[in-house]
């Protein structure tokens, strides 16, 4: 039976450096979502000598917007639904570990849902998963874990972390299964958070994880992967925004405006900038002999600029709210591979600090659809150097 491979977090403990977790206790809180990944993490760690506590974050009430216009009447949420909590609880019961549900709905709404809506209304394209990781999973959950006596947490993310004594830093690395790589959403982790987190799936492929789940007789070994944004079960974010604003009694701001060509010619009108994302092709309501793409969204004038595919590419980007992982700070130009959205193949670029806490990335080759609101994450081979939010 495969066990936790290359337990770096164990082997690198006793070096006596300030960041070393040598004083961490043996209790680990497993963040359990009710899915196969985090359930398998619990089963794997149970085979090791850890004391485990299962925790599930209750983040959103899936019934809250059910039945509003455009929202499903009956929701089958992929996250935080009663079914998922039930699954997580059953896994914990079968493993014989204590399990608790933490109600974090208020914090989730404040720090993930509202910013998500606000970003779209400002013409940007947000990444709620990164916000959730930064504010809930690796912040609040870790605090809760430590409060109840677990010095570390374990999650089902596909990523690797290890301590590098030479640099005296915790390093975040891409996982063995690059098709499941979630490091893009984890660039905001601090050194403290990385030192207190176990990613037991980092050395496994998804099929191997399912196999381990089956070996542990986890009933949910074949449960489908979650795909969409967890709090938008149908996946239609525009309808979610309408329904959420309606529930809040807030009017949808009028951000209708002109569709213009790259030469400034008005070629149509649109109903609101939140309906667009940079690089989008469908749903523009325009007929054209060649496909048209959204190139720019101006939230001051509500103008949406469209153009040919060749015009969607861009040579540079700026990002802010930076977090560095493998380096303490960026002190000069650095050659990196930059990833600008979850499914983007990282591209060669040179990064350097500009202005006040902003990084400028200059790509070797122009990149399609650099989208404000997404993050830019910089890699050195498998290592995450750091990242920030695209302006």
């Amino acid at each position, binding site marked *: 039976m495969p066990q936790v491979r290359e337990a770096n977090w164990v082997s690198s403990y006793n070096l006596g450096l300030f960041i070393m977790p040598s004083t961490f206790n043996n209790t680990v809180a497993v963040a359990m979502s009710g899915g196969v990944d985090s359930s398998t993490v619990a089963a794997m760690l149970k085979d090791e000598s850890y004391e485990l506590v299962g925790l599930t974050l209750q983040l959103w009430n899936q019934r809250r917007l059910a039945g509003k216009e455009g929202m499903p009447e009956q929701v089958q949420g992929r996250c935080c639904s009663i079914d998922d*909590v039930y699954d997580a609880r059953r896994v914990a019961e079968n493993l014989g570990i204590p399990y608790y549900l933490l*109600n974090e709905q208020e914090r989730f709404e404040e720090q993930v849902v509202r910013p998500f809506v606000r970003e779209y209304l400002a013409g940007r394209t947000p990444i709620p998963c990164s916000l959730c990781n930064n504010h809930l999973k690796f912040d609040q959950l870790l*605090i*809760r874990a430590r409060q*109840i006596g677990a010095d570390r947490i374990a999650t089902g993310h596909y990523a690797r972390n290890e301590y590098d004594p030479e640099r005296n830093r915790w390093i975040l690395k891409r996982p063995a299964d690059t098709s499941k790589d979630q490091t893009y959403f984890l660039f905001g982790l601090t050194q403290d958070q990385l030192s207190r987190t176990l990613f037991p799936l980092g050395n496994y492929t998804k099929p191997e994880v399912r196999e381990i789940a089956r070996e542990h007789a986890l009933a949910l070994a074949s449960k489908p992967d979650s795909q969409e944004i967890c709090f938008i079960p149908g996946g239609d974010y525009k309808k979610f925004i309408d329904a959420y604003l309606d529930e809040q009694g807030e009017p949808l701001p009028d951000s209708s405006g002109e569709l213009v060509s790259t030469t400034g010619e008005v070629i149509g009108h649109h109903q609101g900038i939140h309906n667009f994302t940079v690089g989008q092709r469908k749903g523009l309501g325009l007929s054209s002999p060649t496909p048209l793409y959204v190139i720019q969204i101006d939230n001051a004038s509500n103008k949406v600029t469209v153009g040919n595919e060749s015009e969607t590419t861009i040579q540079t980007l700026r990002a802010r709210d930076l977090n560095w992982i493998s380096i303490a700070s960026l002190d000069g130009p650095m050659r990196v591979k930059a990833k600008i959205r979850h499914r983007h193949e990282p591209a060669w670029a040179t990064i350097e600090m500009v202005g006040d806490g902003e990084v400028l990335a200059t790509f070797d080759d122009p990149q399609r659809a650099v989208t404000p609101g997404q993050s830019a994450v910089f890699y050195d081979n498998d290592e995450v150097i750091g990242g920030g*939010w695209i302006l």
Partner: protein
Amino acid sequence: MKRVYMDANATTPLVPEVLDAMRPYFIEHFGNASSIHQQGQHARAAVEQARESVAALVNCRPAEIVFTSGGTESDNMALFGLVGPGDHLITSSIEHHAVLHAAEKLRDRGAEVTFVPVSGEGAVDPQVVRRSIKPNTKLISIMMANNETGVIQPVSEIGRIAAEADIFFHTDAVQAAGKLTIDVQTLRCDLLSISGHKMHAPQGTGVLYVRRGTQLEPLFFGGSHERQRRAGTENLPGIVGLGKAAEIARAALTDGTIQKVAALRNRLEQGVLAQVEETGVNGGNSARVANTTNLYFDNLEGEALVIALDLKGLCTSGGSACASGAAEPSHVLSAMNLTPARARASLRFSLTKQTTEDDIDFALSIIPTAAARLRELAPVNAGTLG
């Protein structure tokens, strides 16, 4: 690991005498109490003996006792059995959800409902109840003791007000049974709910006292069980256990047990108040049942303290448990005008009759350190990005 149970208001363990009383009724005397044959007769005799024991606990006639599946069914039977569209129901904002949600459902179906508020000390004011009475008021339902704070409600006075106005009066006595003397004659109530498992009988057993002459529409239809008030074959072993538990509870009311529990509760309460800063008792200036204390620990999350204590071996509760198990802010503490932060920082400790001095020592040895750790690691807005 040592485990100490201080969540009696959620449920209590069977006492051995109750289990012993029940044991013959699973295999040996398994009969259906409605059957003609002698197996049935034996079952019938056991049910009726239990009915007498329960009747003695609340000072009513045995025929006025209806066995149910628990407190929730008893409360639902009382409310849905009496209140129809157009009728007015007076209840309070601190009732158990079994009453509160039933009342909301009645309102959806066309009844008029008044939820009277409570004081900051968690008690209903009988004069507010009196002033809420309307010509169409059919029923007043006010609990005898609150499950979260233990605060005893002025039910005798409310019973008198209801009787003078010729209005039916129901009291949910789930948290009072076994802790307070219950006399339906002095309470002047028409309906009274009891749950078995809050007084060392098995889960899935309960009682509704129905004063003779009170016409209740049943919830269940089927056989003519329980004088046509509750169809369904009797839960024989459960009812036998409930009868035995009622006998034990009645004896414990006068043998000093309650005073002993109160002394332990007071020692726990005073110990926490002395050892942990920024604490206080919710409803502490009201008369309370002997086993309950609801304490606030400002500047920490009660939900996390419950978990931390559980992992150290002490069972307590925060807000009322709900289906998903996530703690919602308590409607009872909110109704007492606690700030949401303080409501979420509150824990309920509810002792059983088996709680010992050692248990209190244990609790006092872990609560201060657990609370200190939570406060030390209090969530600051430490989000790194975005």
